[in-house]
């Protein structure tokens, strides 16, 4: 089917502005991805899947400018023992990074790995699988044009987390990174990501978990205000594997985080959670698609959005339980705390179930601070602002609790507290 003219024009304009990297094992995957983009076309305002989020600036040939944000605090995770890898505007910064050496893990850079590579079987493969039943053209665009990224193969549990730190330095930077993470049977790893990456950031992470493998992924987006970001995580989970991903998003004019998980082995566990703090010119979209294709798997989606001064939050979350995926335990909750009447939360929770012995629940709510709770706290002497902040932290707690490592959870909460405190009268 031919693409509508507007979509075709926008897609061609975007593709014209890019150069396909060549040379190496990823060539065929890139070319195939390019042809997927050409067939699908890039997202347009009329696409059903982009009903609540405007894709224009994510698709535009030129990245809109974003003022570089100067943080007045130390970067998140900076105080812990970790393997640090830094990208500035999407460009690897060898000087600022640790040596890419960690026992139990092999780490290569996409831009440098030209020889035949283990990642060949995964790169673009999970993304392709994630294109059905819903198209995700920005992810295919990324597979084709990503300039760099990390290829992380975890063979044994490393002693410390891998920390990918992003920095933004040029006003109009347009970064595209593609990470591949493969965790072998029995290994367990934590990957941390944070920092403003670029004016516009398109990132894909493909995750392949072998049987009994475990990946903890904790990321923080922000505090840059003007960035636009479209990120995708494609995860394939083997038997008894565990994937837990949590994202804290603060600020940003436009962020769309898509997480696509396929539970392909029995007894696998996937927890996808997020909390976002939006104030004013802020649009945040969590789009999640979890497919249960094995027996006795558990999935949880827990999303909390704090919105004020006209901020917008979007949640599109789906649980698909395929035929034969019996004993599925699926849970989904998306909630927003609207701190004023100007802010809005748009939610589209979906369940599609083709097995008969499953327990799936979903719920979505939108509300203000509870007046009775607020009075109770104030009656004990807490000033209104502090009481409101405490209740706000309480509101996001269910999402933060999805972070298994409590000290990481505490770091996240501390950032949210600081964010709130900066806005307190």
């Amino acid at each position, binding site marked *: 089917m031919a693409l509508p003219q507007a979509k075709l024009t926008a897609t061609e304009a975007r593709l014209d502005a890019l150069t396909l990297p060549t040379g190496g094992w990823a060539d065929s995957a890139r070319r195939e991805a390019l042809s997927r983009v050409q067939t699908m076309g890039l997202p347009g305002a009329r696409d059903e899947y982009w009903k609540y989020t405007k894709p224009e600036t994510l698709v535009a040939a030129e990245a809109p400018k974003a003022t570089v944000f100067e943080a007045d605090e130390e970067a998140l995770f900076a105080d812990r023992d970790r393997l640090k890898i830094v990208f500035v505007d999407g460009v690897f910064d060898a000087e600022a990074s640790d040596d890419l050496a960690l026992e139990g893990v092999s780490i290569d850079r996409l831009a440098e790995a030209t020889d035949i590579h283990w990642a060949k079987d995964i790169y673009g493969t999970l993304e392709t699988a994630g294109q059905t039943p819903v198209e995700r053209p920005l992810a295919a665009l990324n597979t084709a044009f990503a300039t760099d990224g990390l290829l992380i193969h975890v063979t044994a549990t490393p002693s410390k987390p891998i920390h990918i730190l992003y920095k933004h330095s040029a006003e109009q930077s347009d970064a595209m990174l593609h990470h591949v993470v493969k965790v072998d049977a029995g290994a367990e790893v934590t990957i941390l990501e944070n920092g403003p990456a670029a004016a516009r950031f398109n990132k894909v992470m493909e995750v392949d978990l072998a049987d009994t493998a475990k990946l903890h992924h904790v990321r923080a987006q922000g505090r840059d205000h003007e960035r636009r970001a479209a990120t995708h995580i494609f995860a394939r989970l083997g038997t008894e594997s565990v994937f837990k991903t949590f994202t804290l998003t603060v600020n940003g004019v436009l962020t769309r985080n898509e997480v696509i998980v396929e539970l392909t082995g029995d007894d696998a566990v996937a927890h996808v959670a997020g909390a976002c703090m939006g104030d004013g010119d802020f649009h945040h979209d969590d789009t999640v698609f979890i497919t249960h294709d094995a027996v006795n798997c558990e999935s949880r989606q827990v999303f909390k959005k704090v919105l004020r001064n006209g901020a917008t939050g979007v949640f599109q979350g789906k649980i698909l339980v395929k035929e034969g995926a019996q004993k599925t335990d699926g849970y989904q909750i998306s909630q927003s705390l609207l701190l004023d009447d100007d802010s809005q939360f748009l939610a589209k929770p979906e369940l599609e179930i083709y097995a008969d012995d499953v327990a799936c629940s979903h719920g979505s709510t939108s509300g203000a601070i509870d007046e009775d*709770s607020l009075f109770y706290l104030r*009656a004990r002497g807490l000033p209104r602002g502090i009481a409101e902040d405490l*209740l706000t932290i309480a509101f996001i707690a269910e999402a933060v609790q999805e972070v298994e490592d409590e000290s990481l959870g505490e770091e996240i909460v501390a950032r949210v507290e600081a964010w709130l405190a900066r806005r307190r009268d």
Partner: protein
Amino acid sequence: MLEIKNLHVKLEEEDKQILKGVDLTVEAGKVHAIMGPNGSGKSTLSYVLSGKDGYEVTDGEATLDGEDLLDMEAEERAAAGLFLAFQYPVEIPGVGNMTFLRTAVNAQRKARGEEEMSSADFLKLVRAKAKDLKIDADMLKRPVNVGFSGGEKKRNEILQMAMLEPKMCILDETDSGLDVDAMKLVADGVNALRDEGRGFLVITHYQRLLDHIKPDVVHIMAKGRIIKTGGPELALEVEQNGYADLLEGIE
């Protein structure tokens, strides 16, 4: 200490007058009890004094040690030394009981220009006070009042009171839903705080709490007014004869 004069209160949103001229003075060191049938306005009085939204004072005044209470925010009243033990303590998921207590203690200290309590001092104090009230470590760790039984919630109120050391304590039906043992614990907690500088206003439906917390003065409230004031014998009279006789002829 607490002086209420001719207090008239209506609901903000509705044309409904609830308090129709309440006069009441609680002196330092004294325990006053308010009894009265359901719906007579006892909780409303406690809410208005502590600063809950939704009520409009149409006439009268209320002062604490001469300071105009009605002019203050709820948190300012708390820092000034007013405490309300809620009839229905609120459950707050996600806020740890201990965090809540520490934040409250320090917020009040800060408001009064005092130094914050150190974590160690706070812990020591809260553990000792919790022990007296048979509140275990688990209850301190759990979110505020979430999953607490009725009795646990009321004991938690008394713990907060003990930690905050207010000068004027209002207890709204703290006895309701308590068995005899729990009531005794609560009463002991209250009695331990009785001293010359502190006033109590104990709102109760039944006389039995007053066996444990001996009041100096008993007021009967009905239809938004104090209709009778007397000594402890008034509570016994109500217990025996009910409110019917007292209510006769009251508009």
